[in-house]
């Protein structure tokens, strides 16, 4: 049975959930978590684009024909992209958390609606 459309739909729902959190939540930590959900939804989406039903891991065995391998394995490029994207996402989240902690030091709260030094 082919579950691919369902999986794409789930990735998109996850993306929408993350976007909702970023836009609507007031707590800095919840915003960070929502952004993480969004990033992970995109990563999932990229993996799905490279996936084929019943594909094998893209590691070539000894003695395997290149053409036979190419017809069976999932797309390795998508996986390479996801690894890069996870690493970049990690650095951004680390920076966000660092700034959120400094914000907490100054305001004694994570509530972004109480951080009102800047207007609109």
């Amino acid at each position, binding site marked *: 049975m082919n579950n691919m459309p369902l999986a794409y739909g789930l990735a998109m729902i996850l993306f929408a959930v993350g976007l909702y959190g970023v836009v609507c939540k007031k707590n800095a930590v919840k*915003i960070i978590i929502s952004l993480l959900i*969004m*990033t992970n939804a*995109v990563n999932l*989406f990229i993996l799905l684009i490279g996936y084929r039903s019943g594909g094998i891991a893209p590691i070539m065995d000894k003695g395997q024909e290149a053409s036979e391998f190419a017809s069976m394995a999932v797309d390795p490029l998508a996986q390479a992209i996801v690894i*890069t994207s996870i690493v970049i996402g990690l650095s951004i989240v680390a920076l966000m958390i660092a*700034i959120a902690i*400094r914000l907490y030091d100054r305001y004694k709260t994570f509530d972004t609606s109480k951080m009102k030094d800047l207007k609109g």
Partner: protein
Amino acid sequence: MNTLPLFILIPVGAAFALSTFDVLKNDKKRILVANITAALACLSLTVLAIAHLGKTGVFEMGGRSIPIGIALVLDGFSAPVLAVTGLVSLICAVFSFSYMDMYSGREKFFSLFLLMVAGMNGIVLTSDIFNLYVFMELAAVSSFALVAYGTMKEELEAAFKYLVLSGVATTFILTGIALTYGHTRNLSMVFIYNALSSGSAGPGIYLAAGFLIVGFGIKAALIPFHAWLPDAHPAAPAPVSAMLSGVLIKTAGIYAMVRILFMLFAADLAVASMLLRTLGTVSLMVGVLLALGQWDFKRLLAYHSVSQMGYIALAFGVATPLGIVAGLFHLLNHSVFKSLLFLNSGALFYRTSTRDLRDMGGLNAVMPVTGYTSMVASLSIAGMPPFNGFWSKLLIIIAAIQGGYLWLALWAVLGSVLTLASFAKVQRYAFLGELKEGLKKIKEVPLPMTLSMVFLAVLCAVMGILLIPGIRAVVLDGAADVLLNPAAYIRIATGGIL
């Protein structure tokens, strides 16, 4: 020897070298060494980029040809942007020599600064859309840290807002890139051009373009995606604001957006150009209207950045050869006069410790260099002859009329008049009139700061020469060729093979 990788190797190498300098215990010596390293790195980038104007070239990273490897491609669109990035970063680095005395950790500042430059050079040079995303994040992460550099309430809040919106932008961009990859099974711009330049764009491409426009729209701060910019740019230290407004929103925003949209819709530009025109016109009007009511000097400048980005998007959206030349020319000019204005605001803050125009007045008497250079920059941004802003706005309006968009030309003229009004206010309140009592004792800013402002003011006055036919052919005309003609780009990016 192929010199293209140097555009990334020099700033990255210098940035990592700088981060080891805190072994020097002597503060004075450490600052001096950091200053010299940063200035030399930026100077070499500038010289290298200017030497590359009008040239084309390709460098295959790791010696593997596309699509296996990733290629850096220099063409008529990237060369001028590379030159102005180098130039503005050099001037901002020189300005920082004195300005950053207010802050500590000089070597860390320059380290982040150079990483940002490396990211921007990478965005401009790369011919691989995922690689573009990576360089964009390199530039973005260092710019987040630079905005938060002061670690006061305001800086942190602005940096957090910038981080969240920029994070959303990059997820949208990554989704757009993934959709493009899913559609064409390739990440190299050459192969995407090959796949898309015949036949009409399918629904997958429209979806990808939608995600990419939202993503790059946030990065370029086009209305309605502009909310972060008026917070983030004023909060940063002045030389960083000058870099962000002067080059970062252009390379990571409008340059990447134009490059990718023109690639996705290579077969038929109608939809892409219509979107760019609409976004551009809305931004240029709303941006300038929001700017009129501002009293914070840097915030006013930030809203003008939104407005001027609108001009650039409008010009590219006309999508005729003249429109693209006008857009590129205005991009270069805006880099120069907007960074000059931000440096002026930095100079004022350095001496008066305020950014509120109502607290200033008559500063021409005590800070003549800052006063007169800001006059030059104000006249440039308002489009007064003979300064550079006049020529590029004229070119944009001519291109819009020739393209048959009379109404858009009219909006552009109206926007320009409003820009003049808002800068008349700046001049009136900050520099002209009676000198206020509390301001009598202040002096002109130190030499590195005046030097960099004067240099930019001279550039404002003379950049009109880029329109002289022989110079225009070398610097500006190549962009129209590579953007409107996929075959030209493919020929450059494959070095004539294929």
